[in-house]
Each structure stands twice: as structure tokens, then as C-alpha cells.
């Protein structure tokens, strides 16, 4: 634990904080914290691809793969054990992203965005027209079980919350390590100048492919956690509007840190809740205005506020960090 940096320590401390929130906050707000963690993982996946300059407008694909893996495991195999479900979801997303990555890694910019969107809409259409899976109505999921233990009611909700928090924070910490590691650095270099990366002797394609697969895996974990906590899946998970929402979150939150999209998801959810309350007919306008203001005044997202604050208080330390 000695080589933990500030972000990793923050993630470690976040665990007891999240547990405390579960006890302290009212139930409805805990619900939003919980679903925000599931969705936050997908936003995180969008963020790491954005580091490479790739905007995925189809991250809902793996979100949906995770959700449907959970649903179908119960429906067809009778599995409600969350660990088995997670393994299934991760396996499914690994295989799918491994294959799709072969194609997608060759495209950048708008072409990457459109292709990811297209692939995800294929799944959306397939699921919408499959009657056995409830078509657009989707279907309901069972209560999760944990290695033979099936808690119900309050205990069940609490168990899932603890697991969600644990998995989300662990995934975020691992992603943070990944971004600090060699592939993470290459990915940023690809955004700056891909040709030069190739001249330096590494394969841009391989790095993009790896990033794409990692993004797919954490999205599917997010999908499982989100679907299990809401107890329902629909093809809407793979719709481009869902994917667009994840891009929105990352723009709002910024790509500066792995914590940003997680917090950003929650902020956006709470913002939505109050926007609907204030003006049920035009709440999207409030979100839109916030989005515009963010882009105009905080082009690097809400996270840049924090960075600015720390720069002001610790000018030397920050300068050192930058020079590293």
C-alpha cells in the first residue's frame, strides 16, 4: 500500500464513506448512489477511451450485455449467484469486444463514434424484436444470491450495495493503475500524435484494442450491478440515447481522474431528480443549460474545479507533479 497515490487513497477512504452514507442518507437517495455506481463504471469506460481521443457512442452495448447476461442467466440457466453472473458477463463482453475490437481499432474520430453506435444499435434491434426476451418491455431479474446465501428485503438491498461499492471502487483503482501504466500513457500519446507513436515502435492498434476491451469489461460489470439493483432490464440499455448519456456525464465531469465520472454520474442523477421536481415538463432544458454552461466555463469538466483549487493552494507540489 506504500505506493498508493492520492487517488488510490481517496478510493480506499471512499469505501467506509459509502458504507456510512448507506446508513445516514434516506433510502431513496441511497438508491441513486447505488445505481450511480453501476452507471458510473460505464461512464468510466467512456472516459478511458476519451483519453485516447475516441468518443464511444455505443458503450450502452456492453452495459446491455452485462444486464442481459444477468437476466438470461436466471431466465435460462436458473443462476442467481452474482459472482457467477459477473463471470458470465465479463466473459461475454471479453469475447464480443475481442472480436469487434479487430474492426473498431482501425477507426478514429467520428468513424469510431459512428461504428460503436451502429454496433450497439444492432443489439438494440435484435433484443427489441425477440419476443422470448420480452421485446422492448424487457423482463425482471431475481434477487441476487451470494455463494448460496440469498438475503431478502433490507439485508438483500444492503448486501448488493456493499458489493456494488466494493466492485466499483476496486475497478476504479485498477483503471487508475492502468492509466498510469504503459498502455495508459501510450493511449494518451495516440490522442496527441498517433503517427509518432508508431514511429516510436509500439502498436497503436494493439493499445486501442486493449483499451476497448477493458472498457467493455467494466461496462458489463456496471450493467450487472445496475440491473441487479433495479431488478429490470430492457433493450433501452443498448439504445444510443443511453450511450449518449454516458458521454454527457464524462463531458460534465471531465476526464481528469477516474473518480470524476463516478461522482459526475451521481451529480447528474441528483440534478435530474431536482430538475424533474422543479419543472416536470421541461427538465431536459435545465440539464441542457447546465451542459452548455459547463462546456463554456469549464471545458475540462467539473473535475477541473478541484484541480484549480488544489493548484492554488499547493502551487509547488502541483508543479512537481506536472514535471514528473
Amino acid at each position: 500500500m506504500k505506493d498508493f497515490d492520492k487517488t488510490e487513497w481517496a478510493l480506499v477512504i471512499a469505501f467506509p464513506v459509502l458504507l456510512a452514507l448507506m446508513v445516514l442518507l434516506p433510502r431513496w437517495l441511497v438508491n441513486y448512489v447505488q445505481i450511480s455506481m453501476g452507471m458510473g463504471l460505464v461512464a468510466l469506460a467512456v472516459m478511458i477511451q476519451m483519453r485516447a481521443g475516441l468518443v464511444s457512442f455505443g458503450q450502452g452495448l456492453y452495459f446491455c450485455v452485462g444486464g442481459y447476461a444477468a437476466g438470461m442467466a436466471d431466465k435460462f440457466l436458473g443462476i442467481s449467484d452474482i459472482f457467477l453472473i459477473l463471470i458470465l458477463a465479463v466473459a461475454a463482453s471479453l469475447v464480443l469486444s475481442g472480436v469487434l475490437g479487430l474492426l473498431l481499432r482501425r477507426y478514429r474520430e467520428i468513424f469510431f463514434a459512428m461504428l460503436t453506435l451502429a454496433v450497439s444499435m444492432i443489439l438494440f434491434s435484435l433484443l427489441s424484436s425477440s419476443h422470448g426476451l420480452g421485446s422492448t418491455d424487457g423482463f425482471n431479474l431475481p434477487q441476487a444470491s451470494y455463494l448460496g446465501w440469498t438475503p431478502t428485503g433490507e439485508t438483500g438491498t444492503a448486501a448488493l450495495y456493499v458489493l456494488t461499492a466494493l466492485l466499483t471502487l476496486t475497478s476504479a483503482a485498477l483503471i487508475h493503475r492502468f492509466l498510469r501504466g504503459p498502455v495508459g500513457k501510450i493511449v494518451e500519446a495516440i490522442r496527441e500524435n498517433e503517427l509518432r507513436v508508431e514511429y516510436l515502435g509500439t502498436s497503436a492498434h494493439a493499445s486501442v484494442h486493449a483499451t476497448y476491451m477493458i472498457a467493455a469489461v467494466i461496462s458489463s460489470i456496471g450493467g450487472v450491478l445496475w440491473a441487479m439493483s433495479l431488478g429490470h432490464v430492457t433493450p433501452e440499455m443498448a439504445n444510443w440515447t443511453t450511450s449518449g448519456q454516458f458521454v454527457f456525464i464524462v463531458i460534465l465531469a471531465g476526464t481528469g481522474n477516474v473518480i470524476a465520472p463516478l461522482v459526475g454520474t451521481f451529480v447528474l442523477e441528483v440534478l435530474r431528480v431536482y430538475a424533474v421536481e422543479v419543472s416536470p415538463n421541461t427538465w431536459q432544458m435545465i440539464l441542457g443549460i447546465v451542459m452548455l454552461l459547463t462546456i463554456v466555463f469549464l471545458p475540462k469538466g467539473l473535475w477541473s474545479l478541484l484541480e484549480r483549487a488544489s493548484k492554488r493552494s499547493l502551487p509547488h507540489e502541483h508543479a512537481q507533479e506536472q514535471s514528473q
Partner: protein
Amino acid sequence: MTHSTLSRISSHWLAATLALAVAPAAMAQEEKTFKLGVVSFLSGGASGPFGVPSRNAAELLADAINNGTVPAPYDSVGFAGTLIEPVFVDEASKNVVADYQRLVQKDEVDAIVGYNSSGSCVAIAPEVEKLETLTVMTACGTSQIFEEIVTEPHYLFRAASHATMDNVAAARYVVEHTPAAVDKLGEIAGINQNYSWGLDSWRDFSASIQVLKNDVGIANEQFPKIFAGQYGAEISALLTARADVVHSSFWGGDLEALVIQGAGRGLFGRTQMVLTSSDTAIHRLGRQIPDGTIIGARGSYNIYAPDSELNSWFRQAYFDRYGVYPVHPAYQMVNAMLGMKAAADKAGEGTEEAIIANLKGLSFDTPGGIVDMALAGGHQAITGTSYGTYKFDKDTGLGTVENIVSFKAECINPPAGLTSQEWIKTGFEGADCD
């Protein structure tokens, strides 16, 4: 200011802060209102044809009930004296279930009415029983709710018939009341949206027709995407298929597009069109809907609503406030709210428990006729419905319907204990159509 007033003020403040912090319910108790969550689409493609009419109806009716201006037997104030305080929520959300939990736990509503989409209803149905809050679904059509998802409901009700009724009645209208079409009826075709509503509607309609008349084939099935807006290719396919009857459960903008594009290319002239959810288009399209088209309104609503004091009051009040006449989603919202009022009035108290106990199995009058909570142990409504053929009245410039046939609820709804699918397969066993 004396010391005692100061301390009194501060103790008041303390009490108020405490009340705010721990028990907003205590505050609500003082004012004695019935907080009613109203959920419908306020944005997106379904808001215009469905969501906003149901929201408006809820707003109108809440005011009218609070002022006691609804005609008899609903002319008393509030839910047995308790005033209604509506909270409007947009159903267009990625997290319908979490929003439902919020309404119950944060806004502490006494009950919830609404939900237009079957997807939302399927998602929240188990949650209703978990959170133990009275919820009356108004419009969603899927038969799954009580047949598969919540088989022993206590808190969950639905004040509208499910979609099976629309299509069974449409099939009966075609086979039994449209002699011109039925004599040569050999093949049917359908154009329905590629999602649950469209798929279920077509499945029920085609199965019902085949039960009612032997040797009817299916010439063509089209399932375009929802909100596609362009149906050129599908209309071509239907024109070449030359079916005698073409069924569609399109609604909203898609329906209007189909009517305009299909009528322009002669589809409506060549085959008998059956549009099961098309009353919403009449005021908007007028003469553009070809005469002879079979029109459904998902119940005896709107153009098919009975000539009663309750109905004429509702139509006029709605028109005066919103400038248009109410369409079927508005009627369905009224069904739910009047059912709750009837139950509360019967019990003599406007509480959640009283409404749950008395709404169960209740039969009550609405602008659209009698609603009978007959299925799922008294939690699922059955209503009658009507079909008719379109006739544009050139003198008044208004669309009308003729050859109206009203079907009794028992004729077109499955009996308790039988799922819709099974019931159609048995040849409508036990249907009472006299």
C-alpha cells in the same frame, strides 16, 4: 421581547426543524391532503399522444374533485373530504424504478397513478408490492402484469383493460359486423411497430381472426421500427400482398404518417384497414382518414364514450381548459382517479388503506362507462369497448364514426384464471356477448 416569548419562538423553531428533519409525514398530517404521484410521459415521442393528455386529465380532475364540481355520484369534495395534492413526474427516464422509489420515499406520496408504457409497468410492478404503496396503473397494455409478474397483488391495481381486448374486439368487429369485408375474407396482413405493443397486438388479432373464421391465411406481416415515420417500403409490400384486411396498432405520429402515406397510395381503398388505437388521429387528420376505415379507441372512450352527464361534463371541462377534446389516455387517467375516489367515498375516509380495501372488486361509473375491477382478485379492470367505421362529415368538417358496435367486457376479456393467450386458443371459452 420577553424571555418567555423568545424561548417559545426558539422552541417552535426547534420543533419545526425537527419535523422537517425527521418526519415530513407529520407535517402532511396537519394539512390532511392526499399526496398523489402522477407519472406519465412529459417528454419524448409518447408525450404528445399519450403522456400529456393523461397529465392534463389528472390536473383537471384533481382540481374538480377538490372543488367538488364533478357531477354525481362524485360531487363531494376530495377523496371523502381529503384534498388531493398531485405531484407530476416524467415517465421518460432511464431509471423508472429508482424514480418510483423516490416518489414513495422522498415525496412520501400516499398513492401513485399513471404509467403509459408497458415497459415501465413491467419494471415497477414488483417494486410496488415491495414498497407497499397503492399504485393504480392507467394505460399500459401488457397482460403480463397480473398474469406473470405480480400474481398475488395487494397494492397494485390497473384501472384499464389490457391490450388483448382491443384486438379481440377488432377481430370480432371485422368478422361479425363488416359483411362487405368478411364475405371475401381469405387473407389478412398487418403493419405493427417492432416492439412489445405491436408484436402483442398483431399476435392477438391474427389469432382471434383465425379462431373466428376458418381458413384465413396471413398474407404479410410488417414490423417497422417505432418512430420510423417513413413506410414506403412496407406500404408497397402490403399493396402487393393484396390482403383483404390490414391491421395496425400504430399510434401517435407513426399512425398519422401511415394514414397519410397509405391513403395517398391507395392502400386504404384496396383493403379494409383496421386501426386499433386511432381515436387520437381523428381531430388531427380530419378528412385525410379515408371513409370506411375501422377505428378503435382502446375502450369506449372519446368518440365512443356514452352520452352521460359525467361524459359531457368531462369533455366540456377538458375542452375549456386545454382547447382540445380528451383522447383515450385522458379517459384512462380519469378511470383510475374516479375509482380511487369511489373507493374512498365508499369507506368514508381518504386514506391509502381505505382505498385499497374498497377499490378491490369495485364497479364504478366513469365518463367511458362502467369500469369493473373483476380480474386478478379484484385488482385488474375490465371495461367494454366499441368499434366503428370512419365517416368524415363534410357539413360540420368533423370526423365521425358510424356502424358503432359496443362490446360487453365479458365478451372480449378473458375470464379470471385464464391467460389471454390460452383464452384465445380455446376459442374464447365462456365469452358472454349477448
